[in-house]
Each structure stands twice: as C-alpha cells, then as structure tokens.
C-alpha cells in the first residue's frame, strides 16, 4: 500500500487516480499510524511553501515524513513536496524539512542576476530531463520523453551528487533530486502521460538497497 500524504496542499486526487489507473493500491491520508505502516510514501503538493510547512507541522506530518525517509522505505516527493525536503525555501522564506541540505531558489532571481530575458514564470508545460545517473525509478523511458512542469521555484541541493536529473529553462536546474530510498521530482508524473505513469509504476516496484 502506498500512502499519499494529505496536508491540505492542492489536489492530491490526481496522484491517486493515476496510481489506480496502473492498478497500484493507494490511500490519501494524514493518519500518522497509516503513514508509519505504509510500504511506500508519496509526498505531493501544490501551493506555497510557507503554508504547506505550517500544515505539515500542525498535523505532525513533518516528523512522519522524516521517519519514513529514515526507515528506508521508498519515498517519492512531487513538486512542492520535492522543494519542502530541502532546508529552506525562497518562497515565503520558509524553513523546510531539511532532509536534504540545500535550498529552494526563485527563477525570477536567477534570471535577473544572469540577465536572462523573455522566459515566462512559472515554468509551465512540457520539458525534458537529463539523467545524471541510472536510477531504477527512471528505467524504461524513451530518450526524448517529456514531463509536465508548473513551478516558479526550483530545488538546489548543496551536494550535487544528490541531483539525479536536470532540466533546461534558462539554466540547467535540478528537476529530480534524491538519495538512498528518497527520490523527488519537480515535475508532475501524474500529469505527464505515459512517461509519468512509467515513473509511478517503477516507483511502486522500487526496492532501494
């Protein structure tokens, strides 16, 4: 059973529906016991970092996510869920979970400092990923497969070996990050057609060592 963590951050049903479509049992929950006992965790999210962190803390889910990562069970972060794994976010200057060292940056600021003009924010639409390493969750993809993004901020781990893939949008930003049993995508696999469903299917079978 996969537990999808419910912390009032956007529409979580799309992740659930995509999993049911590929015959993977799942439950949307904020029940800490259920999360502790689940074999796998998905940590999605749409919205702003500040209010998301407040909800996580209020519901006691911040520690549940840290426990899941520490336990060694597979954990998948998606979009805002991915950003919150880092230490802090430029968005609302929010203090985040600190599971991965690093911070969440704003496209607007990097574009201004590098004098990159003409790129819309949010980065919205389909883009490719450039895998830095073989990863079981990303097996079976076609070379030019694209994924659906919608975000104005991006994750930047301190340790670049935790960058699994990058995507080009003015800069090459980390679009998949992770370590050990944790993998986290800035894009939405549940909205990325067959290539996204492949990733969800791989995650549902992933046995990190």
């Amino acid at each position, binding site marked *: 059973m996969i537990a999808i963590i419910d912390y009032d951050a956007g529409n979580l049903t799309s992740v659930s529906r995509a999993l049911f*479509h590929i015959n993977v049992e799942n439950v949307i929950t904020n029940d800490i016991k259920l999360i502790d006992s689940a074999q796998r965790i998905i940590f999605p999210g749409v919205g*702003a970092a500040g209010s998301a962190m407040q909800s996580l803390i209020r519901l006691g889910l911040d520690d549940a996510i840290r426990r899941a990562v520490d336990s060694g069970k597979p954990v998948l972060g998606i979009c805002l869920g991915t950003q919150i794994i880092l230490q802090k976010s430029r968005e609302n200057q929010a203090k985040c979970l600190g599971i991965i060292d690093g911070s969440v940056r704003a496209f607007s600021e990097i574009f201004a400092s590098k004098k990159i003009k003409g*790129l819309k924010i949010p980065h919205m*639409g*389909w883009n490719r990923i450039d895998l830095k390493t073989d990863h079981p969750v990303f097996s079976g993809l076609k070379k030019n497969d694209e994924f*659906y993004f919608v975000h104005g901020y991006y994750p930047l781990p301190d340790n670049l070996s935790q960058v699994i893939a990058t995507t080009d949008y003015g800069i090459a930003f980390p679009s998949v990050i992770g370590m050990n049993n944790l993998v986290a995508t800035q894009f939405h696999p549940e909205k990325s057609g*067959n290539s996204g*469903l492949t990733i969800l299917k791989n995650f549902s079978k992933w046995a990190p060592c």
Partner: protein
Amino acid sequence: MGAMLSKRIIPCLDVREGRTTKGIKFKNNVNIGDPVEMALMYYEAGADEIVFYDITASHEKRDIMIDVVRKVAETIFIPFSVGGGIRTLDDMRDVLLAGAEKVSVNSAAVKNPDIIAQGAAAFGNQCIVLGMDVKHVGKSEKIPSGYEIVINGGRKYMGMDALAWALKAQALGAGEICLNSIDADGTKDGYELTLTELISSRVDIPVIASGGAGHPVHLRDVLKQGKADAALIASMVHYGTYTISDIKSYLDNEGVNVRSTW
C-alpha cells in the same frame, strides 16, 4: 543555454449539457460527440493539454459538467482546464476537486476582477487562467492598444483595454492567459498575430493563443512570430482535417519545439 520548454498544442472542446460542439463564431453549434471519448482520443494522439468550455446555458445543469470532469480525470493523465460559467470560488472548487488542473475565468473576472485574487489565494496562481475575448477597435484614448475586451460572445464591449487588463490580471494572480480573438475565431484564416505578440511580449505569464487556427502554418506563425507559449486548436482536428501528429511534425520541421513522444 536556451529554454527547451516545448510549445503546447491544446485541443479545445466546447461542451453543452455533457456533449461536445464546435461553434463557428459562436453560432450554429453542431453536436459531434462525447467529451470523455474525445479527451481520451486526443490524449492518446499527443495533445499536451486539453481545454473544456462549458457552454451550458442553465446554471442548474452545471452538475453534468462536473460529472464529465470527474470522468475525464480518471481517463487522461495530462493537465486539463475547465472554463465557461465559472462565477464564484465554489464554482472553481467544484471543477478543481473533480480533477481539473486549472480553471479559467472570463466574463466573471471582467465584472469582478477580485475573483482572480481570491482564486489564486485559495488554489494557487497556477490554477487560475484568465480567458480574454478581444476585438480590434483601433487605438483611442480609452483603448491605447487598439484592442478591447468584449463579453457575451463578442456582443458586449466593456470599454477595457486588452493589454491593460492582461497586466492587471497578472498582478492579481492569474497564472496564465488564454487569449481569444473574436475577429479571428472560426475563420480558419490564422490567429491574430499582432494581438498575440502584443500581449505575450508584455506579460510574464504564459499565453495560450486562441481563435483562427485552420492550418499548421497558423500555429507556426503564432508560436514564433506571435510569441505564444501554446496554441489552442479546435475544428482543424475535430473534423479530422489534421491529426495532432501531423501538426507537431510540421512544427518540428519548422524549428518549433514540440513534445514528440507520448
């Protein structure tokens, strides 16, 4: 390093009481099918996103559309938006909870711009699309861009400048603009390039061009010259004149970045 973000090709389905139609200049709509089946067909054919416009006249029958949205969300796994008749935060919540990625507001936002800010605060900017219906009226003191906002299918002029409205909606929290030229809509003679370029080059949020698509060259022109981030298409694919693959192959050959695998 350049941006590799693909330009999006977005079929638009007009839905009335649970069935799809295609209006020519908003008149003489004909019934051509089941929106869930058509969404699946376009999903499998490589659409990057789908837009639904609910043109159901009566507010009492809006539940039919919510049911369509729910079924579409179980069937396709790409983003889709719903517009038409969205007047309140509750209307927005209904379609988003039913599984739509985005909701678009048009005349309700013209009458009450604050709905954009309220929607963005409640659901996030990325959920809120501003639909704009625009007519060329020539430059004047009141309409400096020469393009005016209209509602009611182009019948009512609102005395608002299209560019000023786009910038205001962005400031209020709109995450995207769907820009429809009433002059071009239904003509199949091509998008309104001057209007699209004017708006898209001035706002920071993505712009979907709408109205006038009849040939793949029109998409090339609006995505390159018009600087649109996405192009809405309807009759050119609904009646089987072109497939999405045909359009994307053409665009790829013309040097437009499009998603080529699905």
